[in-house]
């Protein structure tokens, strides 16, 4: 196809919209970062003086060490359990056809299609009834609801890539199902398992609604602690809230960089096939 040398008005419009979006995004993130380092910032483009005191203050005031410990613990538990439970289910759903299979697939799809608040409120009620909410266990259980289906969805294409004849050969040599899983499938699925683990971790760190509804005072994750400190604005200095937001931001970006080593950006959004490049 012909390529115009001078950009057309449509191209200007498109690139203009993209630029405006990125300028806005940079402003949104930049103003948080700048404010967290500023000593006083009232009526000027940039703060009058710079300081790092807000980070120390945020660390002490918001008890960030326990909050971070809880966040990491919740993520590891959720990722571990959902992989252990999700991968075998994904295997059966990808390989086998059986009566009720499509219905089961729909069942696993539903939690992803519903807004978390819709099922979060009844779920939190049930978890409170059994005394599970308000503790770490309730937060983990609530976060498993979208995570297990997510693992199933992300693992399916990885499983479909494995040639079934490899498994059949193993069975011919006398391997039982658990051997096939441990010796044949697990090593071949390592990239897929890594990808879905890291995606679940990213989603769990960012999952606000379910954690918010089920967390007690000592089981808040970072994003929920951030929300509480923001909605109680005026009690704490805005800068130390921003310092906490930057800590959250850095944690997310580290995870994101890590995630992008294993997956391509579009996979973070949904299950899509690789660009035919």
């Amino acid at each position: 196809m012909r390529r115009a040398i001078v950009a057309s008005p449509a191209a200007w419009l498109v690139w203009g919209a993209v630029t405006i979006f990125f300028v806005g995004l940079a402003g949104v993130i930049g103003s948080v970062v700048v404010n967290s380092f500023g000593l006083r910032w009232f009526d000027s483009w940039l703060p009058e003086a710079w300081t790092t005191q807000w980070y120390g203050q945020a660390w002490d005031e918001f008890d960030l060490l326990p909050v971070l410990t809880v966040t990491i613990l919740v993520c590891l538990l959720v990722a571990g359990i959902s992989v252990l439970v999700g991968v075998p289910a994904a295997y059966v759903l990808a390989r086998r056809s059986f009566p009720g299979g499509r219905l089961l697939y729909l069942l696993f799809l539903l939690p992803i299609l519903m807004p978390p608040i819709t099922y979060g409120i009844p779920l939190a009620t049930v978890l409170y009834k059994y005394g599970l909410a308000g503790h770490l266990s309730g937060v983990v259980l609530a976060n498993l609801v979208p995570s297990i289906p997510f693992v199933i969805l992300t693992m399916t294409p990885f499983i479909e890539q494995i040639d079934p004849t490899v498994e059949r050969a193993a069975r011919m040599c006398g391997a039982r199902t658990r051997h096939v899983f441990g010796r044949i499938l697990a090593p071949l699925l390592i990239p897929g398992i890594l990808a879905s683990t890291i995606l679940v971790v990213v989603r769990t760190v960012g999952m606000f609604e379910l954690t918010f509804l089920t967390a007690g005072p000592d089981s808040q994750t970072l994003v929920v602690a951030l929300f509480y400190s923001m909605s109680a604005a005026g009690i704490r200095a805005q800068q130390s809230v921003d310092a906490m937001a930057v800590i959250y931001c850095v944690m997310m970006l580290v995870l994101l960089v890590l995630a992008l080593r294993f997956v391509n950006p579009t996979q973070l959004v949904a299950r899509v096939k690789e660009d035919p490049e």
Partner: protein
Amino acid sequence: MSTATVAVRHRLAERGIDRQLLLLVPATVFVVALFIYPFAYGIAVSLQPAEGGMLAAYRSFFTDAYQRDTIMTTLVIALPAALLNVLASVPIAYRMRGRFRGKRVLTTALVVPITLGTVLTAEGLLNFLGPAGWFNRFLTTTGLADAPVRLTNNYWGVFFSLVITGFPFAFLLVLSYLSGIDPSLERAAATLGAGWRQRFLRITLPLLAPGLATTFCLTFVLAFSVFPSAILVGDPSGSTRVISIAAYEAAYVRYDYAGGAAAAIIMGVVELLVISIVLGLRGLLYTGSTAGGKG
């Protein structure tokens, strides 16, 4: 083992049922115990209010204008935001569907706001669009506005937060659908003399439309569950009192579990209604292979 059980097992295996299906059990137990059972429990709770008949919680939701209007408020925020995100994605993704330098950097940059989530976006918007923020400072120093424009703690704050997190999401999905469409189809049309407009309207758009419907649904689900941003950058007692706030308040502020469950279920029903309308329309479209060549 008797011959009878062997025969039964054999017949079941022929229909695709054998012991391997047991691998599905843990995942199914989790989803049923943590998703289906709470949902059923929620419906049961919503039908047993502290006072009044079976449907009292629903009746009081629909008769109280303060509660009922939250449905409209949510739709007025979520539908335009989801529509804008999808419609803006189409031309931008169309222009960027080919390969160019920095495409990976661009898509990576777009994932950042999705990963950061609505709480951080809300904090940033409060700083950036606030009365003393960079945006208003820019408007007043360039003379575009005399006084700072109020963009936070109202409808627009929530709307911008939905665009910042929702647009990259919609864009990446549309881009992946577009790159799934075989470029040779368009090249064939160009050979037959179709212009730019015809190629887009007659070839690409019909193939893309089902994908757009799916993207709209997923973006709408995101926008429909605005909770943190509606509280933080919105006006949670007025113009952005969305239905999730109504459900949360009923359950956790007034401890009216029947009311909270009823509001959550109404929210789910409204959401599924919109999605099923869109998916129903999608069913009228061509949904087949988007690959060209022999087929």
